[in-house]
């Protein structure tokens, strides 16, 4: 996409040095640099939104206007920004430099007992430079000054880890134990400056600018962990592993800093038993079961603390005075989110593992799920508290099967997997149901006990009112408007008629990986898909909603008129009195797809030919063609059924909503791989 780009360079070095029989030391070092041109996001709209809303009858470029671009004017009655202008004039360059280094000393103390001391340091330096020159593309898309914003950030994260381990085999018994004490801290500081230059486009730094602002921020985070683990097996037949970790996190309330997370797993390799030797075809058979708890502290820093927000101002008699208030509701009771994972699995290998099969049942329960809880506006807070809101269960089955043939001229392997998950919110601790992201005053998802989390919520449509039909249930409706379903049967369409419209989680997901070699040819294909999920296609609100004078999709040419009653697109009417564009099943679509995710086909020049051709200077030469996202089969009408969560939308409550996020690119690549 125009206006975006990404470049990365990295360097890695690892060394190990054995001082004597007992002591070795080593280090790792990674240097990485990345340079990214971020997608412009101006006027609160994504580039895709600007693209679909742009009026189609004006030129993109106009040399007579400052900056060389043209956007709509007053007479167009519409204010989409020119997306090409955004891509070419608005630069937003993010450069990150990262150093990650560790050093360790490993001491073999005595007979399987060893000690490792490791220190690590993670350092990051970031600069972000945003610049937009003066331009005047239209009555609603101009900027009389060059805007300059420069952000600088640093983070430093030292890690100290002490590990004591013991490993020993006595006959058929082998034992492996580990104790770890670890502390990781993280400190991030940022400084932002911005200004406006009314005189020139040539200066791109904060010199000679007006309306200059600076701001800074700093956050610190710490995680302290005590970990103990023990593995034991008897003759590779009976396997047991147990561990416990105790984590202390700075992000939780004073009484809830610490969480304890035990785990236990058991395995039985049935194929090692004497009675199995009668079945030589079974090369591997293993039954396994495990129980484990893990903790999650992936939330913002300081969210449990109530703080004063001093970013308010009011001008009394023309001079600015500062204002301070408490704008977020804090939650001092915030504690670790714990996921309890249980699974039972069976692994089977046949004919020397040429066939492999595995089946697993799992039940993962998240307790005290951490979520930003929407609060009623009557409380007057703008920041919602983060809280442990309830328990969510993900139960399911997963099967994988594979076959490989590694002999003969034609060698191949094929692996397939399929997984079924059932998601349910089993209890809500706060007692309140939870609504997801808002859209035109409606809320698009709903979370309540006994249902999958964050299901799509709204009104169910039931065709279009034709002339002469009774609209008394919807007093603002006229012929051509959408009829909604009176779910509660009270004779009128109201907020109480909102209902389950679908869900982002698929009934099942599947994938197939196939790779093969024949003579000098090699082929690798990875295909995957999901089935039975829904997508909230909000982008269609822009292409079919007809609520404002923006460009629309060609679908609206089929809109209802008295002469064209047989359509599912409602009439075009100023002000949308029936709210045809509300959150409803109109925007919900089947999100199932099948996709060839990766495909690569290669040919390796035969050694002899290469030898004579290059006189031995090239040891191997491979030509290849590869593609990502080559083919997608789907009924979804949006750009891409594989949608990411939009920045700024809560990923727990707003997954599966297509706001016009950038679609995954289809790439085709031809290459040459040389080894000297």
């Amino acid at each position: 996409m125009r206006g975006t780009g990404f470049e990365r360079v990295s360097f890695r070095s690892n060394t190990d040095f054995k001082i004597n029989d007992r002591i070795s030391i080593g280090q790792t070092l990674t240097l990485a640099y990345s340079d990214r041109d971020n997608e412009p996001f101006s006027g609160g709209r994504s580039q895709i939104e600007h693209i679909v809303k742009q009026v189609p009858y004006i030129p993109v470029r106009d040399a007579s206007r400052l900056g060389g671009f043209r956007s709509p004017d007053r007479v167009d009655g519409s204010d989409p920004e020119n997306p090409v202008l955004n891509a070419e004039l608005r630069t937003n360059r993010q450069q990150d430099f990262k150093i990650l280094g560790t050093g360790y000393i490993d001491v073999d103390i005595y007979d399987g007992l060893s000690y490792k001391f490791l220190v690590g340091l993670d350092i990051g330096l970031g600069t972000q430079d945003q610049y937009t020159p003066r331009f005047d593309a239209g009555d609603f898309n101009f900027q009389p000054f060059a805007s300059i914003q420069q952000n600088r950030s640093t983070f430093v994260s030292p890690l100290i880890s002490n590990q004591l381990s013991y490993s020993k085999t006595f006959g058929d018994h082998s034992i492996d134990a580990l104790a770890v004490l670890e502390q990781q801290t993280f400190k991030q500081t940022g400084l932002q400056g911005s200004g406006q230059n009314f005189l020139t486009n040539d200066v791109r730094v904060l010199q000679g600018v007006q309306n200059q602002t600076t701001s800074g921020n700093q956050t610190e985070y710490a995680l302290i962990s005590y970990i103990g683990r023990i593995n034991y097996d008897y003759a590779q037949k009976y396997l047991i592993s147990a561990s416990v970790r105790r984590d202390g996190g700075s992000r939780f309330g004073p009484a809830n800093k610490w969480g304890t997370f035990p785990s236990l797993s058991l395995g039985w390799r049935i194929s090692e038993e004497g009675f199995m030797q009668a079945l030589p075809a079974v090369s591997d058979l293993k039954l396994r079961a495990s129980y484990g708890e893990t903790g999650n502290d992936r939330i913002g820093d300081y969210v449990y603390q109530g703080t004063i927000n001093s970013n308010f101002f009011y001008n009394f008699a023309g001079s600015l005075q500062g204002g301070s208030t408490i704008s977020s509701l804090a939650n001092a009771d915030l504690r670790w989110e714990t996921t309890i994972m249980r699974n039972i699995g069976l692994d089977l290998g046949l004919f020397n593992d040429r066939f492999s099969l595995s089946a697993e049942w799992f039940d993962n329960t998240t307790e005290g799920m951490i979520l930003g809880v929407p609060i009623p506006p009557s409380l007057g807070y703008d920041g919602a508290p983060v809280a442990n809101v309830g328990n969510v269960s993900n139960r399911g089955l997963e099967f994988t099967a594979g076959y490989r043939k590694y002999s003969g001229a034609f060698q191949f392997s094929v692996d397939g997997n399929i997984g079924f998950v059932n998601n349910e919110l089993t209890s809500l601790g706060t007692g309140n149901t939870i609504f997801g992201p808002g859209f035109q005053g409606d809320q698009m998802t709903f979370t309540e006990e006994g249902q999958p989390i964050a299901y799509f919520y709204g009104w169910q449509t039931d065709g279009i009112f034709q002339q002469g039909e009774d609209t008394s249930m919807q007093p603002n409706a006229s012929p051509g408007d959408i009829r909604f379903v009176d779910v509660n049967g009270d004779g009128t369409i109201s907020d109480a008629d909102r209902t389950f419209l679908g869900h982002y989680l698929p009934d099942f997901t599947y994938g197939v990986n196939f790779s093969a070699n024949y003579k000098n040819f090699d082929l690798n294909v990875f295909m995957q898909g999901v089935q039975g999920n829904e997508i909230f296609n909000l982008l269609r609100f822009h292409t079919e909603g007809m609520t404002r004078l923006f460009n629309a999709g060609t679908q609206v040419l089929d809109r209802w008129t008295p002469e064209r009653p047989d359509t599912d697109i409602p009439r075009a009417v100023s002000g949308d009195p029936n709210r045809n564009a509300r959150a409803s099943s109109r925007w919900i679509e089947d999100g199932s797809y099948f996709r060839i995710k990766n495909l690569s086909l290669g040919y390796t020049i035969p050694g002899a030919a290469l030898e004579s051709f290059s006189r031995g200077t090239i040891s191997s030469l491979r030509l290849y063609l590869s593609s990502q996202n080559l083919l997608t089969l789907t009924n979804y009408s949006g750009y891409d059924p594989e949608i990411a969560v939009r920045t700024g939308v809560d990923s727990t409550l707003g997954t599966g909503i297509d706001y016009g996020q950038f679609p995954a690119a289809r790439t085709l690549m031809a290459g040459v791989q040389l080894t000297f």
Partner: protein
Amino acid sequence: MKTKYISMFIALFVGMVSCDEEKLEPVNPNQLGIETFYRSGPQLEAAVNSVYAGLQANNLYNREYFFLQDLLSDDCDTGGPQLEAPRAQVLNHVFDASNPLVTANWRGWFRVVHRANLVLENADKAVEEITDGLRNRILGEAYFLRALANFELVSLWGPIPLMTSSAESPDGLPRTSEGEVYQTIFADLGEAISRLPLKSEYASEDIGRATRGAAQALAAKVHLFRGNFAEARPFLEAVINSNEYALVDRYLDNFEAENENNSESVWEVQFSEEFGNAGGWNADGSNIAEVTFRGQEYGPTAWRNVIPSISLVEAYETVENGAEKDDPRGRYTFFRIGDTYNNGQSVLTADKVQGATDRPSWRKYQAIYKRENEDTNSGINFRVIRYADVLLMMAEVENETSGPAAALPYINQVRARADVDMPPYPTAQYPTDSREEMRLAIMHERRVELAGEQIRNRDIRRWRRQGTLPSEPIPAFQSRNDVLPIPLVEIDNNSALSNADQNSGY
């Protein structure tokens, strides 16, 4: 030897890992903690300043407040299809509980209540750099602002969750009866009146803060809204007899940036274009949010989302419709094609105006009187209560409690403004022999004097409830529209409310 070796390493291990658990108790370096704030006079003053900042928010006077009030009244028509659907739905009275304007105003006023509550409940903690006088004034400001917000809420939504302290849990409160909300409003205004200084008693750097006169005028407005004319009288008399206020000679001095906080001004929301428009889009008024979008939203050469309604334009007295002279306030309130703007340097031509150019556009509160283009950077204050409104309220009180003759001096004072100079009532069009006739004159005078000032909506509502409207001025009005729907986001997230608590008809 071996044992010694092992124990040495274990000792080392334990020694090196004595983790620093104090790191788990971080102090947020970016913001002050709640425990350490509200301790001094300047901190308490900053707390009350944030309440004012809430008024400037995009949810309220920056944008959504004037839209909601004007679209609910009969002052405006649509300027064309550029008027966004949720706004058109308000204008056409087909809005529901999801309407973003309704939600924004609800949110905006409750934010003001919350911030005022923080001032009221923490005022006693301030012990440094504070005098009793300063503490009293700050308390008075907070009481006034909370009363203003609760009046906006109860007058439009009926029973509301009555927040008398800042919330500590996310749960929410049920709706409180209108009577109890009004009781709290009058108690707050009583506190404000007893604590606030007169306008003239403020130091120049505090111009724009709530005054005793503002609290008294607001108390009168609330009584009038409920039809309690006798109760309104002492408050109006206090404002009038304070000698703090007088009409300005030039009508437009009330709607331009140069003559803000003038003698006619009783209470204004302050704006300024001096500080940039960085925070203009912030719903909560955070950051530097000192501008209003009013100019760009209504401007004849800008979006022109709404235009004055035909009934408003026709309400002005003209020679053509039988008056002795053309009411000059028509010219002051509207721009027509051919008018000059930008300090007389530009002429409004049809090609600069989108939509129906035979219909006038708004001039009041527009910034192009002094510049070529409107943008999001308008610094014109909203005159929420001005002295002309006080005089007309007094006329109404006199008419209802004493009779038309007693009302005449007040209503005619407004008409006698130097650059309005309309012949006094009674006139041929507006006789004032009876209370009913005087009512019509007052309704007329309020409409033309206060057009486009977010006053008409509540005037229509109270007259409708009191049964004194000669006819329904809003054809699309349905009985359910007497109150607005409780926003869906409130009902959905407030554990004390369910769909059954919604106002009937929504």
